[in-house]
């Protein structure tokens, strides 16, 4: 997320491309100033990463059919003698 402010409302130094200017207060990072070109490059990378991480395939007709064909149990063999014969017990 980014927020726009007019540069006349705050004193922001210019930063060359490829450099990040880190402002600290009491040894803690408070704000970072980037060249617009770097900022837009990072935003585009972030967007690409988001797409890579959330690209889900749609359940195809064929995959659905595969479930219809393979998911349904048939008639279970439940006769003890038949089970023993089937398994050679």
């Amino acid at each position, binding site marked *: 997320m980014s927020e726009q402010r007019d540069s006349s409302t705050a004193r922001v130094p210019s930063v060359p491309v490829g450099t990040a200017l880190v402002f600290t207060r009491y040894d803690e990072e408070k704000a970072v100033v980037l060249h617009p070109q770097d900022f837009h490059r990072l935003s585009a990378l972030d967007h690409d*990463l988001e797409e890579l*991480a959330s690209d*889900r*395939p749609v359940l195809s007709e064929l*995959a659905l059919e*595969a*479930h219809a064909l*393979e*998911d349904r149990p048939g008639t279970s063999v439940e006769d003890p003698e038949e089970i023993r014969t089937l398994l050679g017990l």
Partner: protein
Amino acid sequence: MNRRGAGRLAGSVRWAVIPFAPAPPFRLYAGTGSEPVVVPAADTVIDAARRGGDAELSYIVPGKARPVLILSDPPASHHREVTALRLLRLSKLVPDDRQRVRAQQDELLFHLAPDRFELPEESAAMVTALVRLHEDAIGTTPALGRLDDGEMRIVGERLIRFYGLDIRLLLERQIRELAARHEARGPSR
């Protein structure tokens, strides 16, 4: 010692005993002298548990011995469950669809070429049919075939995408690690 003597389970296609997912009406085993108790809805069992009952019931679930594509090795000696994909038998499809699967045109069905897999029928691994099974439910006979590392990567990628696993942080970390390694090697000539 590995009782199979055939290396890793991950990537291999093997026979295993696979239960179907339990669905209502549930049939509960009630001892040798009685018919199973039939419970028409999940809420009946859930409500009993929420009232404080911690009873473990034996569900009668249909199951089948079938070949599966195993995705992982058991993580530890005391945790011996693995994940696997069930297979679709191609003979059940119409010829056009069979051809699409053979040509790997559906990313949710990974074709297992008959010349590499000694399956009873030509099959494809169903990316959408993930199952969990105990190592001891897998047959001890040799693997019916094996996917190579590159093919397993493709299956892994399809699984991540289909199940919507959010791997953004993992991707970010790997990109940073790659960049750091690249930087450590110095400028390319």
